[in-house]
């Protein structure tokens, strides 16, 4: 019995390009860096000639739509000064959305289909929420918020911090991995029609999950920076 037949390709972590000791460069890392280059390079190209006048290029309009929608969404959740949080929260959304949309490129595997990427994103949210909370309300006030509504809730608040992070990582990973896996299984069964439908569904769920990730990060930060009038 050949054991290798049973180990299925779950994500891009299996394909390793270069290894030195425990440092590895696998397909997930390469794809992530490629996405970062695409986003940063594209934005740099677009913002080279910004013009405040009436006639703007369509790429600038697209970026303006993105930024203004993100500001509006952040404000509607309840964060008073949306520009402060815009860069972090909109980056989360744009990165995950780009990782999803690029699945129409053949031979591409979304880096968010690997638990390492989604865990990294979730840990960044886990670190960012106290950072923003302390920057907004001060250290003492933030620590006191763990004792609300009563001090009995302290262990539950701490546990909920960790479980929220885990839920964020597993939610995104499960959605992306399941889409890719169903697509791979269907490709072995039906030739053309159903895989196309499933990849359209995968695009839709991926965009919804990117939006959810951003909105959940916004809600957590809003809960941490809530100042109390007492």
């Amino acid at each position, binding site marked *: *019995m050949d054991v290798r037949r*049973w180990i299925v390709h*779950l994500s891009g972590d299996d394909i390793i390009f270069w290894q030195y000791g425990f440092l590895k460069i696998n397909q997930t890392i390469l794809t992530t860096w490629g996405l970062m280059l695409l986003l940063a390079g594209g934005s740099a190209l677009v913002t080279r000639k910004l013009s405040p006048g009436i006639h703007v290029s369509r790429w600038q309009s697209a970026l303006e739509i993105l930024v203004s929608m993100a500001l509006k969404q952040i404000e509607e959740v309840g964060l008073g000064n949306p520009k402060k949080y815009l860069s972090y929260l909109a980056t989360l959304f744009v990165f995950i959305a780009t990782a999803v949309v690029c699945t129409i490129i053949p031979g591409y595997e979304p880096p968010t289909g690997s638990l390492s990427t989604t865990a990294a994103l979730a840990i960044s949210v886990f670190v960012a929420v106290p950072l923003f909370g302390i920057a907004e309300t001060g250290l003492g006030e933030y620590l006191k918020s763990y004792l609300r509504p009563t001090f009995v809730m302290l262990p539950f608040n701490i546990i909920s911090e960790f479980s929220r992070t885990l839920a964020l990582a*597993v939610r995104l*990973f499960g959605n992306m991995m*399941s889409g890719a896996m169903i697509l791979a299984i269907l490709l072995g069964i039906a030739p053309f029609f159903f895989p196309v439908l499933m990849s359209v569904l995968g695009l839709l769920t991926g965009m919804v999950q990117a939006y959810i990730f951003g909105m959940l990060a916004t809600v957590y930060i809003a809960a941490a920076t809530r100042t109390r009038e007492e």
Partner: protein
Amino acid sequence: MDIIIIVAVASIVTAGLTTAIGCIGPALGEGRAVSSALTSLAQQPDSASTITRTLFIGLAMIESVAIYCFVISMILIFANPFWNQVIAQAGGK
């Protein structure tokens, strides 16, 4: 009945039952969420954007429970730690 058969049967049966039973609850919950969202949309169409946004966030939270069950099924079928160990043991014999 050696150990390979027991591990294989337990993994497959548990994987199937996990997805089957685990998706009942979220499906019912999502149905109730959408129906109450439709009711409040009919009553107050002006706040449609808020209701829709809250609906999507709530649906994603409910859906994540089904995703947890799916991830466990996938782990049991494709990345089963006990299966690899049992195979290695059988291969070493």
